[in-house]
């Protein structure tokens, strides 16, 4: 049995995980395990910006953290926890300045200050950016600081299961992808920062690796999943591949047209137009397509041609590159074909269950970033708030762990017993897959994605969601009899993808189940059979867990009290 011991183990090498490591590196014996090299993480795909009310531009002079918090809560359709949002907004200017001090290569204004651009649902130009590759620039910067601090990395290690002892976390079992060996990480502090679970859908902007591994592992040790019904569909993903076309393209003046050359956003958001929040723009585009006003019944046009070559080359060079490589279209001359696609998971591991932000119900286990539901995004996340969340709560949770400093003695006989049991169950799982005579993983994965796309998409209703539940139960059943040859485990990505599927089938079921339960429309969750928001019954967070094999739902109150709950219109 191979065992590594640390004061704290961080799972995931994206912005969230890296930022925790920086906070702890000087005082804790800390390790990051990641299934890919950290610089491959999906944080690097974020394009448009990171919000902070710096007020660097003339138009942004009056901005402040309260306005940022208000826009975020309003954009969330009031489901965000207002105390968490205040932390997010107040920390924002500091964290952006901190990133700059680490060397982040932000774009600049003539004044020399960090440049800021308008984003959907924001009252001021608030999104700080590095061209249209902001996530890439920040991921590299924070990784560089980890190198500077000598953080220990275990690259290409896959989290399989968490080990719990009593109600405390005791460690985790991982697969060393290169050697194929199972390795135990023994630690009484574990931070899950494994990103989102967008790959339960086929049509998604997410990296192939966004499979909810942290969520799946947490769900299996009985941690509830919060608000998973709230799935963000990004309005503008490239037709064909669904690669993200940043909101910054609209922030810089890009316009949306249907095939009759109408700016259809005037029908749903006459004031905000293209810069209404993502849920509203995504529904508007889908409506155009469903009602026959799209191109080839599949997409609308995002027109940048009027911005001119210079502005496109300066502000949106990555978007131009993506459009040319993946759609054969040069946005300087031709509009970009776009359609909505799954983009972000507002829900995640239930946080602040009893303690503080990022704390789960299991002692010593934390979750941050897209993996978690802290909840700062509520029913709909504003663009520019996800990069912000990763670093703000990465630092916050790092500090909380440092303060607690609960480094206990590990390796008692009981904990070793729990480790051995966990190893044994994984070996048994691999043997079962080997022996099974059922379907191939790909068939099961596709059945899951097909029903999620079809029945748990932008527009939802009772019968579709019922169908999704039936389909996903079948998926679960097929997964139990799935066949996969597991004898050679070195760099066996078939095995990795099967382990990812193990996480996804659970989270897909949770998502559909919560969507069926929530009989109202709020933010990204739109029920055609319940088109209105219903604060009386549903201004609550959903919590899904599995008891005796059955999914059950509980609720948790939303933290209000700072901003008055109102109707939402743009």
């Amino acid at each position, binding site marked *: 049995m191979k065992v590594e011991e640390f004061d704290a183990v961080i799972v995931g090498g994206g912005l969230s995980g890296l930022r925790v490591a*920086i906070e702890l590196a000087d005082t804790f014996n800390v390790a990051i395990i990641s299934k*890919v*090299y950290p*610089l*491959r*993480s*999906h944080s*690097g*795909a974020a394009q448009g910006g990171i919000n902070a009310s*710096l007020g660097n531009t003339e138009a942004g002079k009056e901005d402040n953290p309260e306005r940022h918090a208000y826009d975020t809560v309003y954009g969330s359709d009031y489901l965000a926890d207002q105390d968490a949002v205040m932390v997010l907004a107040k920390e924002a*200017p*500091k*964290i952006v*300045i*901190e990133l*700059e*001090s*680490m*060397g982040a*290569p*932000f*774009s*600049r204004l*003539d004044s*020399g*200050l*960090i*440049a800021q651009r308008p984003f959907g649902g924001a009252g001021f130009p608030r999104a700080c950016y*590095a*061209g249209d*590759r902001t996530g*890439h*620039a920040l991921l*590299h910067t924070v990784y*560089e*600081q980890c*190198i*500077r601090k000598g953080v220990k990395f275990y690259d290409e290690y896959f989290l399989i299961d968490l080990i719990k002892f009593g109600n405390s976390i005791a460690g985790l079992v991982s697969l060393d992808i*290169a050697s194929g060996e199972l390795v135990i990480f023994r630690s009484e502090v574990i931070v899950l920062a494994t990103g989102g679970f967008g790959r339960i859908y086929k049509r998604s902007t997410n*990296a*192939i*690796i966004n499979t909810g591994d942290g969520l799946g592992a947490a769900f299996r040790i009985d941690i509830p999943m919060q608000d998973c019904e709230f799935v963000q569909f990004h309005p503008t993903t490239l037709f*064909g*591949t669904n*690669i993200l076309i940043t909101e910054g393209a609209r922030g810089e003046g890009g316009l949306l047209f249907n095939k009759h050359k109408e700016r259809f956003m005037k029908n749903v958001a006459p004031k905000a137009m293209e810069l209404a929040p993502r849920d509203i723009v995504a529904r508007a585009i889908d409506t155009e397509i469903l009602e026959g006003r799209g191109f080839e019944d599949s997409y609308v046009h995002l027109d940048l041609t009027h911005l001119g070559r210079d502005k496109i080359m300066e502000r949106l060079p990555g978007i131009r590159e*993506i459009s040319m*490589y*993946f759609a054969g279209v040069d946005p300087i001359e031709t509009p970009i074909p776009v359609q909505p696609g799954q983009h972000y998971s507002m829900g995640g591991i239930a946080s602040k269950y009893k303690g503080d932000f990022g704390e789960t119900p299991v002692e010593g286990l934390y979750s941050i970033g897209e993996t978690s539901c802290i909840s700062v995004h509520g029913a709909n996340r504003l663009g520019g708030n996800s990069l912000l969340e990763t670093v703000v709560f990465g630092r916050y949770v790092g500090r909380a762990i440092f303060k607690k400093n609960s480094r206990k003695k590990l390796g008692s006989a009981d904990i070793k017993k729990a480790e051995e049991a966990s190893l044994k169950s994984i070996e048994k799982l691999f043997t079962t897959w080997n022996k099974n005579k059922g379907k*191939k*993983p*790909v068939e099961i994965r596709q059945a899951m994605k097909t029903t999620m796309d079809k029945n748990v998409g932008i527009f939802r209703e009772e019968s579709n969601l019922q169908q999704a539940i039936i389909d996903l139960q079948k998926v679960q059943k097929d997964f139990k009899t799935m066949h*996969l*040859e597991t004898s*050679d485990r*070195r*760099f*066996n*990505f*078939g095995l990795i*993808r099967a382990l990812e599927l193990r996480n996804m089938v659970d989270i897909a079921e949770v998502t559909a189940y919560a969507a069926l339960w929530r009989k109202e429309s709020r933010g990204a969750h739109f029920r055609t059979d319940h088109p209105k928001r219903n604060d009386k019954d549903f201004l609550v967070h959903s919590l899904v867990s599995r008891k005796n094999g059955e999914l059950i739902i509980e609720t948790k109150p939303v933290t209000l009290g700072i901003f008055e709950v109102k109707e939402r219109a743009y």
Partner: protein
Amino acid sequence: MTKKEKTFIIYRQKTKNSKPTYERFKVPLTPGMTVLEALFYIQDYYDHTLAFRYTCRGAICGSCGMTINKFPQLACKTQVEPSEIKKHPRVQELVFGEISDWDKDNEILIEPLPNMPIIKDLIVDMEPFWEFYKEVKPYFNREINDTPPESKQTPENAKRIEQLIYCILCGICWTCPVSGKRKDYLGPSSLAKAFRFIDDTRIAEKQRRIIYQSAMQENGVPACEKIFACNAVCPKGVMPGIAIDKIRKLETK
């Protein structure tokens, strides 16, 4: 109507020291299919042990560098149709194993990245790559500080390093023949990274000096033979060769 298919010839190697083989797979084509998608098809339907790295499928993460039709490139960014045989006078012929019967017009040949030890199939050992990356000390060493205002930089100065920021550390520039013959060569990627910091107007003079000196080690800038294969193959237009040249010119100042 029968579906259009394409044959892929894939480099296979079981372990670090085993003899390579080539294996053919027929993949049904879908509109706009990329080489990466074709590899997933093979993994899903024919052989799930086929090993290759991937992450974003959008040319931003740097995972899927490999040699396609004898030219190193990102699999996610390379279309299956029309199949293209890329060539460049600065890129030498790359040989991995013996393949005598490759039908260039109808078959796509997939091999690993050059000049890195092959561990399994299309997976190369990236450890030396990351070690050399770290060796140039690619980071700011200012005090981490969150008190406004931020340090200023003119838009012109921010622009100087923009192209270097685009580097995704995919390793494709290790096509450089010097990386092939000298196992201790820091490589174009590390040196371009060094210049990203050297040329950043915000960095402290002392740190700039440290990075400059690491880049100027005997196995760094001086080892570059100005072949500029790196510029020819870089999928992000970073032009590492130009960065190396600029570091070299700093010395003579």
